């Protein structure tokens, strides 16, 4: 096993542990936005994890996967946030219920 693989494996292990701690924050978070911050961070760490895995396996397909995952995670966070915005507006009885930002 060469130098590069050892470094990449250690990096992946460290990232997994930090993802676990983020998950703790996402479960504990007192407010909904705490969870959203934690989920956003988890997805970015997931992107980096996929990149490291692709480099470790010498497979270029993983790069495409992480590109798509970047866009998808961004879209997921945006959708959740806008959904919450629209909900809060309805709760307060405002006119704006279509969730425009």
């Amino acid at each position: 096993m060469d130098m590069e693989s050892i470094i990449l494996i250690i990096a992946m292990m460290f990232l997994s542990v930090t993802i676990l701690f983020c998950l703790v924050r996402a479960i504990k978070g007192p407010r909904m936005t705490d969870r959203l911050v934690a989920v956003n961070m988890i997805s970015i760490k997931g992107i980096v994890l996929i990149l490291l895995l692709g480099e470790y396996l010498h497979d270029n397909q993983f790069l495409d996967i992480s590109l798509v995952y970047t866009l998808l995670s961004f879209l997921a966070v945006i959708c959740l946030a806008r959904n919450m915005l629209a909900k809060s507006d309805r709760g307060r009885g405002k006119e704006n219920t279509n969730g425009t930002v």
Partner: protein
Amino acid sequence: MELFRIIAGTVLIVLGLFIFGVATLGLFRFRYVLNRVHVAAKCDSLAVMLICFGLMFFSASIGTILKLLLVIILVWLANPVANHLICKVEVETNEHLEDECEVEGRP
């Protein structure tokens, strides 16, 4: 030359991992969401950039380097927008915002 390549890549990746660790620690040490967002927004962007540059040293082909650059650009465009929207949700939905921070003009 080979040794220099590996050392440069390792240093960049370890720096990126350190910043990710600090970001995770920041999620636990700050008490309120808007302060946590500061850590999440800044540290994630720089850590992704450092790790991608480190991986560029490890991989040789030009296509991989271009794709890694594309990942950096996408994350740098997407991450501030996502965090900005989280802030907006917090400011809009929290009824007791004044307890946590001074408010000088509210959107």
